[in-house]
């Protein structure tokens, strides 16, 4: 306690120093890129941005904008130029789009078992069969760790394997965390990620009563889904998942519960030919948020990588086709949102942080998100447990949270992921991030070569596309504004 008070005093003093200094108008580091319309998106160091004509950009480069009132105001509002008047604005933009930096861990993923009743072609977790279940003792220690880690927001997310195979631990953690939260009064959300095959009315009743959100995977059309996701015995699973999603939705409707089922799509090579069919599957099921995520080279996916994967450009072409179709549907009054775009436009248009771990710089791994494995090991991310070497194991639930979060390995991972060091010339840097586990898996080191990292290349192409649409100032921009204003828990 004494230490905390001492720290507060030091911080207050530094705050005072930071506020008291007079600064003359100056240009901060900025980066720019030409859009399809010929305009340039110019981004300031703290995440403000502006669209400029070539002439405007030339004026900025040659520093002769002081006489041009309109340009001067634009540059000041976007904090590309800074003085004492807009220092608070720059601080505000930076704080808002990086809200994650000011919060203790909030996403706590619990891997209750590595066992699964499915054998998906790309299984990232590389599941075991019939072993590796979390015990009651480890589950209670995990809860202690979570509640002691201190943040005002807690999301507990059950992961697997197939979580419903360890139902008694899921029940224990849900009941116990809800009970403890009567004292802790955190903003507590609980979510289960499951293939839903073992979901029955009794389990669904329990989940609904305890306000547990449900998330599952549908990889798109029947053809693609059944090729990717099969049972251990090799059976198709599209019908089962489809029926269970409808079962959950009907149940919510009967009870007048305002809830939705979250669904994720893992995009394999096979899916690239079917962007419209994937969107249509989601629309038919009444799913309003579509998340098109590239397949990852973890677990079982490694042995089939050449047949699953594609180039960043191929994924981008697929994504553009899906986006064009999403626009078309929205024009026809069908409300459907693409989650990857949401994560970007939230920051760009609304200056809010969607708390998406993969777009945090430094990484949100081991800071915003933690993974508790069935054996009590703590990893800095879900993917951290999926690689063979224990590089991203940062401690155990027997330790104090501060000891684990402050471990040298964890801090080295954060430091290596600070995009400012490697991505200086991209106007999309202030809203992006890099995932150290994926970098490690791709490049054999946690220090990223951003230009060679497939996901960052996809991110940069997606940003350019979104800015092209924003610059057009039409229906798509309006739609992005609507998406950016949404709150996703």
């Amino acid at each position, binding site marked *: 306690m004494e230490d905390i008070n001492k720290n507060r005093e030091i911080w207050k003093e530094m705050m005072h120093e930071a506020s008291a200094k007079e600064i003359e108008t100056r240009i901060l*580091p900025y980066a720019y890129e030409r859009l399809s319309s010929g305009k340039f998106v110019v981004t300031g160091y703290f995440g403000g941005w502006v669209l400029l004509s070539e002439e405007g950009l030339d004026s900025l480069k040659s520093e002769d904008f002081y006489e041009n009132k309109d340009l001067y105001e634009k540059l000041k509002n976007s904090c590309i130029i800074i003085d004492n008047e807009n220092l608070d604005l720059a601080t505000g933009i930076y704080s808002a789009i990086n809200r994650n930096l000011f919060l203790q861990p909030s996403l706590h993923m619990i891997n209750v078992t590595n066992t699964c009743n499915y054998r998906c072609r790309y299984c990232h977790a590389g599941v075991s069969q019939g072993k590796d279940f979390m015990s009651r*003792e480890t589950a*209670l220690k995990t809860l202690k760790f979570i509640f002691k880690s201190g943040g005002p927001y807690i999301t507990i997310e059950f992961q697997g394997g197939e979580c419903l195979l360890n139902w008694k631990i899921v029940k224990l953690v849900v009941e116990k965390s809800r009970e403890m939260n009567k*004292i802790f009064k955190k903003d507590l959300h609980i979510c289960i990620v499951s293939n839903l095959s073992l979901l029955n009315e009794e389990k669904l009743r329990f989940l609904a009563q305890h306000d547990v959100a449900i998330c599952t995977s549908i990889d798109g059309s029947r053809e693609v889904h059944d090729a990717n996701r099969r049972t251990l015995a090799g059976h198709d699973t599209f019908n089962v998942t489809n029926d269970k999603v409808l079962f959950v939705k009907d149940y919510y409707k009967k009870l007048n519960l305002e809830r939705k089922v979250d669904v994720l799509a893992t995009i394999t090579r096979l899916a690239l030919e079917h962007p419209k069919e994937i969107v249509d599957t989601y629309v038919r099921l009444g799913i309003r948020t579509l998340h098109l995520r590239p397949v990852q080279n973890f677990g079982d996916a490694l042995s089939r990588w050449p047949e699953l994967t594609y180039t960043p450009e191929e994924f981008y072409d697929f994504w553009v086709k899906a986006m064009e179709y999403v626009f078309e549907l929205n024009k026809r009054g069908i409300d459907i949102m693409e989650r990857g775009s949401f994560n970007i436009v939230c920051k760009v248009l609304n200056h809010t942080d969607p708390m998406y771990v993969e777009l945090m710089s430094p990484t949100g791994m081991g800071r915003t998100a933690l993974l508790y494995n069935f054996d009590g090991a703590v990893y800095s991310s879900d993917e951290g447990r999926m690689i063979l070497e224990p590089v991203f194991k940062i401690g155990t639930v027997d330790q104090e949270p501060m000891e684990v979060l402050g471990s040298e390995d964890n801090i080295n991972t954060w430091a290596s992921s600070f995009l400012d060091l490697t991505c200086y010339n991209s106007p999309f840097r202030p809203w992006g991030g890099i995932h150290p586990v994926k970098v490690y898996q791709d490049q054999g080191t946690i220090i990223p070569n951003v230009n*060679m990292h497939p996901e960052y290349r996809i991110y940069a192409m997606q940003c350019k596309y979104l800015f092209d649409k924003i610059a057009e100032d039409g229906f798509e921009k309006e739609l992005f504004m609507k998406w950016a204003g949404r709150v996703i828990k």
Partner: protein
Amino acid sequence: MGSGFEVKNGELVLRINPEVYSLERVYATAYIFLDKYYFILDGDKNKEIIVKIKPKDAKQDLEKFAYKFFEEMLSITNYFNQFEKNKDVISMVLQRALFSITPKPLTGKEDKEIKKLDEEIRQEANL
């Protein structure tokens, strides 16, 4: 010694005046193109920096790339010069943003709840 380049036997050799571009900027620029080229750095960081470049794909236009390399190096140098000039303001904004939170210790009631959980964990371990 002035900066310049020559293309010979499918290899590009850049000669860089270290009074214009430092070795750090040469490293940073080469790093950007690692996906397309092999680099061998040589010379003397105080007299002349030599960069030997071989494309991973033989079809690359090396003369064009030489200009691109110098252009990128100029852009990097300008960015980091701006960064250097403004580092006091950047750190001021970051300080203001980051110092807005302080760690919060457990309250008495919360501490009691953790102790209750500890007791359950002990019982579970003894089973």
